[in-house]
């Protein structure tokens, strides 16, 4: 029994309706963001490897969508504090950019106790592959060789970046069971996972170390 109103509108949400859904006309971007990015992820026998899907998804995002890009362009206003809304859509002026950069310089020069910069451009996080390179590079750097600041920052970001999708990249068998999410587990409880984690764990440890920026203190 269909509502008359629905009939008038042409597309009836009845299961029986032949007009159900988008059909072949559905926008490819809409489909891809759903079939690649949504839906239940279970490990099949053929391991295209969820990591590959991850990477593919990231690549496609460059074609399809990016919130990060939106932020970069200053159109993410609705996610911010309402008090900022009067400046909605305003792209950073040169003066503001200048102020921000100066503040960053000050931060780098001074305060060793400063928390990791809270407002790192998220856009970078979209390109996780690059992160990995940076992070691995960073891991190899010896402390105090002058690039440490740079290295640590990227390591931090990499840690964030890899931390989230961790479960999606777990080996199939583990995801089949009732294992807790990877991030909840301690390395000791998941020795077999160690192979998947080395890049991640050191970075996480470093993040939480109180004296995490020895180089900076040394400079003072």
């Amino acid at each position: 029994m269909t509502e008359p109103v629905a009939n008038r509108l042409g597309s009836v949400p009845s299961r029986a309706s032949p007009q159900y859904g988008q059909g072949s006309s559905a926008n490819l971007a809409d489909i891809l963001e759903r079939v690649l990015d949504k839906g239940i992820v279970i490990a099949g026998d053929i391991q295209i490897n969820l990591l590959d899907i991850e990477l593919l998804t990231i690549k496609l995002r460059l074609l399809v969508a990016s919130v990060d890009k939106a932020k970069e362009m200053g159109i993410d206003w609705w996610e911010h504090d309402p008090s900022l809304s009067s400046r909605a859509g305003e792209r950073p002026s040169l003066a503001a950019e200048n102020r921000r950069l100066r503040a960053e310089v000050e931060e780098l020069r001074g305060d060793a106790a400063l928390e990791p910069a809270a407002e790192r451009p998220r856009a970078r996080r979209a390109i996780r592959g690059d992160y990995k390179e940076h992070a691995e590079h960073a891991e190899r750097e010896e402390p105090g060789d002058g690039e440490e600041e740079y290295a640590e920052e990227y390591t931090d970001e990499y840690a964030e970046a890899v931390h989230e999708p961790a479960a999606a990249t777990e080996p199939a068998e583990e995801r089949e069971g009732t294992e807790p999410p990877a991030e909840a587990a301690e390395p000791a409880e998941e020795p077999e996972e160690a192979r998947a984690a080395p890049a991640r764990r050191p970075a996480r440890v470093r993040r939480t170390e109180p004296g995490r920026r020895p180089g900076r203190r040394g400079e003072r």
Partner: protein
Amino acid sequence: MTEQVVYAYAVARDSTELAEALSGLEGVARSPVHLVRGGQGGELVAAVSPVDAADFGEVPLRRHLEDLTWLEAVARAHHGVIEALTERITVLPLRLATVYLDDDRVRGMLDRRGDVFADRLARLTAHVEWGVKLYVEPSAEEPPPAVPASDDAGPGRSYLRRRRAERHARDDVYRTARSAAESVAEAARRYAVEHARHRVQQGELARGPGENVTNDAYLVPLERGEEFRSEVRRAVEGLSGIRVEVTGPWAPYSFAAPVETHDEGHEGAPAAGEPPDAPGGVPGERPAHRGTQRAAP
């Protein structure tokens, strides 16, 4: 005869309607779709179809996924099967390219995860997903009427003045977009039981008039779909420069992953594919599903 593997599309509760929906249904590579029954009481089914291992084995699959033409064909076929089933019954869509060696392996998967599937199916039954995208129309982004050119203003000053005028115009448009986004969300929430935020669409695959500023998915009771759609559209009526696009109904792609179990390691939370972008994310407003999810990370 080439070796075959089994491509799985979706999980559902067994029903006669489902069997009807399958008749003549073709999946990826035009392969015939059939059901595999499983779960503790045999009450669950997975819709699957046989595909060539030469195309869907690990190595070829990885290569194919780099090919956008191939990917599009498979994505559309995958979606086509799920959509055909969704016309009749609630299904849990599986991620693209979930491939098993044979039907028995699929059955084993159903048996092992039966509880999780059953829970989520119960939650989603008789609900569908609607997509709501808000656009700022390009016309609205055009610079406002030219600032009266004054002869004494140097080129630099003129430029700055023009830039300022443009920025103000853009501010106006974005303010309008913001209020539109709020109206739309308010209207949508009256009907929706869950909400997921996707990334805004930009780039080559998302061409179209206007700039996408919000891209959300709402889980709406089946029978309220038309009301939902018309109310959402009404929410932006009269707002110049704003366009809303409502798509759907979709199978509950954005809501298939168990959300509540997120922190319980029940199913491997993010397994569902929803990497917690913000670990402490606000539940109601942006379920783990933020489209921004995972890779946004």
